[in-house]
């Protein structure tokens, strides 16, 4: 048992048996304030860490350790004070804290939680197995379990099996790996590859695979084969290794065949293709452990890939690529696949359909393996999905996206009975973010345009170089550095030259192929389906390619402004494996999953991050206080009637109200708490509270849907979340309006040294850009009053201390106005210019929208 747990238990032993009504409300209140202080402190550390690990700072592991030690202490304090406050009503919270802590320590120390089993079936997968079974397996198991979607029967061969195999065959001893993560010579790669391919299965692994295969066989109705594929990559799947490792399809249900396929997949870790990819992203092959998934093949009538948002053109749309038979040709970009664009925000209508010329299709062959065969004539130009199927895929995609809170790249199939299956789902990597730097696109009036807005953008950006027209894939190795690769088809083989070429243009291909995924990861400006680029462009000709949302525009010669502009926007810290490894710990710390206290998941068990724990503590502390107050211990909870529908319940702990002892409702005039009076006067100032509903657009709607499922249930009726705990000189106000939360904690007395204002604002229903715009506005305004401000994502924390009584009252009045005024402002402000305007207006006392 940890020291922390011991300490807790000893505290409980002393307080157990103390009956609530004997505790004075003042004691409760002082504990409440202590919890708040702990909470605030912890949240500031989170904000600081978020900032420092965000890519703007050079930091080292000492910083990470130090900050996390501080955070650990602060959250630990918060929990122990919270347990005192609630008399340990939520014992599971401490457990969750320890679980999350364990996860974080593994990230900091770079240790891996060892897998217990060699083989795990998807239906036995539990939380915390991600590292053991790989992100791909874990994601699918979760889709099956949590969303109850069709995922074929499957088992994972764990990283423990990988270790067992490698050590049984003494692979690391037999091959010479260079020191210090230096590139591995081709000969060693080849040797490792061969050793694995012909390695021997350790007896217990053989036994486990054999058992799993029999089990699949017993559960399989009819003929059955497996798809065996890697599930390596990072835990969060942000870097996907798309197409870099071998996949063996249509493997007969026979232990020897499955083991052979397993070794083939493992061996591909040491393929040249994969090693280039790893080198580029800073992985060390020695650290890589490969889990493998073995999944029953769907007898697919139609398969393909979908992106749950169309990031190049319109984020309200999702795009589906489909073809007859197996989907390999779509992910490899070899087929002219069908395209469907669906408006997922509104009615779900199909806004664009393009039927490709599907000359060939891939099917499972009877002897095992796959074969490419000519598509029957009548199917070639026929749409491979009917509108009902498109709608079904859209529904599935939205459900998966909502569950994982991120846009998704999904492989799917319809079997011959028309059932939809999910074969893979991983986060969709965002394309280049050209916005946000404030730099305008340079003008290129004089350059001669060779191709205008052609093809489908895969990765935005610009590059110049000499054209290399690739006629034969074997010529890949002769591409000179800095060339622009122009080819008819796209291919994941191109990864071999991705560190050398400066842009890629292909005549055919889809933005959902493996190559496309890789180009995004490598941030190579890329356009596919550009028609006749191989004909329009001449070998060795110097050109500049600019890829934007409208496709590619190609200029003759070098257009320096374009290239330099692109370079300034191109480099991103998150390309670095080391950086991502460290930053990954924020995943356990910063995100807020617990948003709505009225939902069932608002439990200690649902806390996934430190921030969740703090949010839970805060919410339940306030609830505890209300409950105690309502049970009439001493103070009582009363409703505050204002001229605006803010729905605030007040708990007075001493001198905060006049003559209110027997009332359920009071008015602003009866509030004698100095700080609350000032805030109310601001909130109700004429013109600052806008009561017209502001419509959300589809994007906003989706973004709020993604975070909280039931937007309609949110109305002013929830008084319990808006409350103020007050005394004559103190007020702690927590407000929830729609999807944003405000915490205001202030002390306002004659003694300036005791006075402080703490203001926290977080969340919103609109998309991130708009939410952070509102935060910038708040920061801008509070900055005028001398607040010390920290912002991170959609959270702002502002503090001010040591201020005279009159000044504090004046500022609190302004904050009251700001609270009312900004309620819907995120949906109103369309751009950064309007931000400046609204901020100026506010400071001048103009409150119109």
């Amino acid at each position, binding site marked *: 048992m940890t020291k922390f747990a011991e300490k807790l238990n000893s505290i409980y032993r002393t307080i157990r048996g103390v009956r609530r009504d004997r505790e004075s409300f003042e004691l409760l209140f002082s504990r409440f304030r202590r919890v708040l202080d702990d909470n605030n402190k912890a949240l500031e550390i989170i904000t600081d860490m978020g900032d420092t690990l965000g890519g703007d700072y*050079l930091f080292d592991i000492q910083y990470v350790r130090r900050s996390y030690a501080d955070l650990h202490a602060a959250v630990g304090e918060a929990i122990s004070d919270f347990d005192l406050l609630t008399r340990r009503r939520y014992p599971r919270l401490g457990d969750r804290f320890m679980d999350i802590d364990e996860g974080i320590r593994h990230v900091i120390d770079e240790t891996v939680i060892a897998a217990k089993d060699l083989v795990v079936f998807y239906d036995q997968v539990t939380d915390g197995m991600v590292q053991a079974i790989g992100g791909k397996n874990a994601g699918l198991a979760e889709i099956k379990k949590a969303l109850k979607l069709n995922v074929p029967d499957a088992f994972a061969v764990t990283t423990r099996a990988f270790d067992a195999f490698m050590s049984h065959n003494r692979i690391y001893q037999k091959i010479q790996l260079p020191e210090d993560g230096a590139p591995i010579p081709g000969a060693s790669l080849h040797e490792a590859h061969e050793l694995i391919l012909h390695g021997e299965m350790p007896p217990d692994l053989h036994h486990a695979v054999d058992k799993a295969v029999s089990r699949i066989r017993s559960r399989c109705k009819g003929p059955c084969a497996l798809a065996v594929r890697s599930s390596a990559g990072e835990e969060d799947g942000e870097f996907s290794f798309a197409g870099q490792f071998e996949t063996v399809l249509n493997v007969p249900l026979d232990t020897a065949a499955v083991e052979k396929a397993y070794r083939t997949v493992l061996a591909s870790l040491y393929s040249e293709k994969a090693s280039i990819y790893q080198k580029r992203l800073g992985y060390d092959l020695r650290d890589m452990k490969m889990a493998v998934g073995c999944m029953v093949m769907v007898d697919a009538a139609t398969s393909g890939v979908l992106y749950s948002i169309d990031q190049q053109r319109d984020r309200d749309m999702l795009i589906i690529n489909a073809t007859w038979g197996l989907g390999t040709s779509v992910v490899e970009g070899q087929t002219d696949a069908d395209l469907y664009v669906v408006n997922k925000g509104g009615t779900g209508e199909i806004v664009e359909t393009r039927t490709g010329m599907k000359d060939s299709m891939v099917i499972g062959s009877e002897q095992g393996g796959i074969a490419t065969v000519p598509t029957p004539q009548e199917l070639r130009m026929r749409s491979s999905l009917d509108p009902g199927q498109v709608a079904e895929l859209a529904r599935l995609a939205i459900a998966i996206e909502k569950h994982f809170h991120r846009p998704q790249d999904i492989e799917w199939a319809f079997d011959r009975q028309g059932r939809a299956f999910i074969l893979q789902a991983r986060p969709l990597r965002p394309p280049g973010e050209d916005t946000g730097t404030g730099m305008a696109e340079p003008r290129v009036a004089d350059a001669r345009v060779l191709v205008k807005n052609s093809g489908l953008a895969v990765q935005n950006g610009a590059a110049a170089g000499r054209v290399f027209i690739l006629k034969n894939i074997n010529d890949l190795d002769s591409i000179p550095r800095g060339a622009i690769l122009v080819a008819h088809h796209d291919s994941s083989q191109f990864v071999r030259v991705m560190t050398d070429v400066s842009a890629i243009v292909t005549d055919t291909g889809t933005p959902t192929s493996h190559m496309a995924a890789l180009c995004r990861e490598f941030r190579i400006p890329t356009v596919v389906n550009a028609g006749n680029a191989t004909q329009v462009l001449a070998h060795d000709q110097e050109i500049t390619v600019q890829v934007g949302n409208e496709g590619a525009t190609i200029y003759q010669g070098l257009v320096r402004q374009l290239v330099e502009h692109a370079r300034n926007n191109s480099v991103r810290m998150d390309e*670095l494996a*080391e950086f991502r490894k460290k930053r990954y710990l924020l995943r356990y710390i910063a995100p807020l999953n617990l948003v709505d206290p009225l939902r069932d998941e608002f439990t200690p068990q649902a806390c996934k991050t430190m921030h969740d724990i703090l949010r839970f503590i805060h919410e339940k502390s306030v609830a505890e206080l209300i409950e105690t107050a309502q049970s009439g211990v001493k103070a009582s909870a009363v409703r505050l009637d204002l001229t605006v529908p803010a729905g605030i319940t007040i708990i007075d702990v001493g001198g905060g109200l006049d003559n209110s002892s027997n009332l359920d409702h009071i008015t602003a005039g009866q509030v004698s708490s100095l700080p609350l009076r000032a805030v109310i006067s601001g909130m109700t100032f004429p013109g600052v509270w806008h009561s017209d509903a502001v419509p959300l657009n589809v994007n906003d709607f989706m973004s709020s849907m993604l975070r909280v499922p039931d937007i309609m249930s949110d109305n002013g009726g929830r008084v319990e979340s808006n409350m103020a705990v007050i005394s004559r000189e103190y007020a702690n106000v927590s407000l929830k309006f729609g999807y944003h939360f405000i915490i205001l904690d202030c002390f306002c007395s004659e003694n300036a040294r005791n006075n402080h204002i703490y203001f926290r604002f977080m969340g919103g229903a609109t998309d991130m850009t708009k939410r952070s715009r509102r935060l910038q506005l708040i920061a801008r305004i509070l900055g005028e009053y001398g607040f010390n401000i920290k912002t991170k994502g959609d959270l702002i924390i502002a503090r001010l201390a040591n201020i005279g009584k009159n000044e504090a009252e004046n500022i609190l009045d302004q904050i009251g106005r700001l609270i009312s005024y900004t309620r819907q402002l995120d949906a109103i402000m369309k751009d950064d210019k309007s931000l400046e305007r609204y901020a100026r207006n506010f400071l001048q006392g103009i409150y119109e929208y």
Partner: protein
Amino acid sequence: MSNHRIMIIDDEKIVGDMAKLSLEQEGYGVETFLNAEPALKRLQEEKFDVVVTDYKMKGIDGMEVLKTVKDLYPATQVIMITAFANLDAAIEALRRDVHDFFPKPVKIKELKASIKRALEKQH
């Protein structure tokens, strides 16, 4: 495009990686080293305009790097970074003509600005 060359010495890979990525963005040629020995050897082969070094390292430490660089290549500017604010080290570094001194975490923008000033000082 500038032809300036920057050397980063830090025993933590992440520091060198991040610095390299951000400084290459500015058009500098950047080389990183995990310890000082090979770094000093490299300085014999090629001129670097700025050396950014960690203070506390196994083997040859940052102060030693500063001393050596200033003895042998006085035109090369040295920027020192430390894991924590260390006043004594800062004073000694200043005596030895360090160009700048940062406690970690270092804001990359500030490091870039400091390098720019260091390069201006050279000319």
